[in-house]
């Protein structure tokens, strides 16, 4: 689908953030959410890969390394569809501002890096409308990587892209994998009209720009909570 929720006549609006792990996008959407809530607006926040039913299958698959690029893609699409149809669509029909930490572009980037044909992945997700605003937090790759890797976290198999066989070292694999995802994001920037944010600036500077952009683009006063 190439239409936004506004194009489709939904009263609600969907704002998505995309970017690498460690780009600071979650912080930014959290601060945006707080601001909108404080203004007394109808806000809902949704995370990628969080529906209970599909979670059990995903974690089983990940644990046992049963997933191939195609099943990895499909199981996340199933999860997204569940959230989309049961949660996002009804809220958007009810006139909510829906904030999504990652949207279909995360799948486009990851699945294509794993080898799925871009046209196939886009087709699978074509039931979903485009966000009204997509912020892409463009960070220096090294900065994002270090933010994650400096804490020496336990990287999950798929998170590190270990299934791609890029390196036997999870940290090295993660670096290469994230680099490729970054390239996909850059390639999608124009295609999907991302609002590119310089994620190397101060948190407050970025948040100021995010709030300003949202204010200008969406007539926020219409989203007040009905008392």
């Amino acid at each position, binding site marked *: 689908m190439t239409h936004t929720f506004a194009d489709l006549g939904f009263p609600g609006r969907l704002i998505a953030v995309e970017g690498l792990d460690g780009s600071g996008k979650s912080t930014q959407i959290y601060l945006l959410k707080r601001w909108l809530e404080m203004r007394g607006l109808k806000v809902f926040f949704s995370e990628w890969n969080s529906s209970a*039913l599909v979670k059990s299958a995903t974690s089983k698959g990940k644990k046992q390394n*049963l997933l191939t690029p*195609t*099943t990895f893609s499909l199981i996340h699409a199933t999860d997204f*569809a569940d959230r989309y149809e*049961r949660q996002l669509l009804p809220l958007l029909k009810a006139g909510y501002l829906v904030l999504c930490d990652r949207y279909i572009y995360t799948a486009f980037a990851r699945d294509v890096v794993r080898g799925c044909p871009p046209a196939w992945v886009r087709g*699978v997700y*074509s039931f979903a409308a485009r966000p009204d605003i997509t912020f892409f937090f463009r960070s220096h790759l090294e900065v994002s990587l270090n933010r994650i890797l400096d804490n020496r976290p336990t990287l999950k198999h798929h998170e590190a892209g270990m299934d791609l066989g890029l390196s036997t070292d999870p940290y090295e694999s993660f670096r290469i994998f994230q680099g490729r995802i970054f390239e996909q994001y850059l390639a999608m920037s124009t295609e999907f009209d991302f609002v590119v944010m310089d994620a190397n600036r101060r948190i407050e500077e970025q948040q100021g720009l995010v709030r300003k952009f949202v204010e200008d683009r969406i007539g926020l006063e219409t989203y007040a909570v009905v008392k």
Partner: protein
Amino acid sequence: MKRTTKRNTRRGSANDDPSVLVPKVTPKRFFGLGLPGVDLEKLSGKLVVVEGADGSGRSTQIVRLVQWLEASGHHTLQVGLKRSSLVSEELETAQQGNILSRTTLSLFYATDFADQLENNILPALRAGSIVIADRYIYTLMVRDLVRGMDEDWLRNLYGIALVPDAVFYLEVRPEILVQRVFAKQQALDYWESGMDLGLSRDMFDSFLQYQSRMRDTFRRLQRRYGFDIIDAERSMDEVNAELRQRIENVLAGDLSRQPTAG
């Protein structure tokens, strides 16, 4: 000494002849964009699909075909819907509760299918086995089409699937089907009656309406994908003899009735 097709048919599985026919390798292809990293030229086995509603005799025919194929010296693998190790339990739970919306359920089934395709069907075909699929993407597509899903979306989704070497749709009229179901069990199944569509509150009516929509849609897909419609209102033996004959032709490399990518 090679067995001729004719002789093999006449003698069936009760064949004392020790010679075994080596199936002719024929080219494979995907319906659409396919799966990453699959070398189609390495798939030396055959994929045979049996489609049909519950009560069409599908399971009985498959059991008999497997026996016959094994007796004829072919390694055989059976696969079916909702049998993947990845999501079959979750799918069952979701169906019981009837809590998933259309696109989600559809993608859930596609995940189950893809898992079996990659982890069971393709490895068996690489090893040169005959894979007998108890339903395939056609049933999945027909179910979704009857429920109003977009055909282009489904075609893209199942573009990952391999075009089978033979597809048999066991066709039985809904009014005969309902009798067969009752002869076997006491009640109609919620999903096989299409109760989720809200066609009728009356389960019997709903079953007939739903099954006739399924049949119409199968016929429409048949014109697109060119599979074989088998009159399954005949006796089990007659149907089985026809299936064997056709499978023998496929094993011999006859491509004249080969299904298409649509």
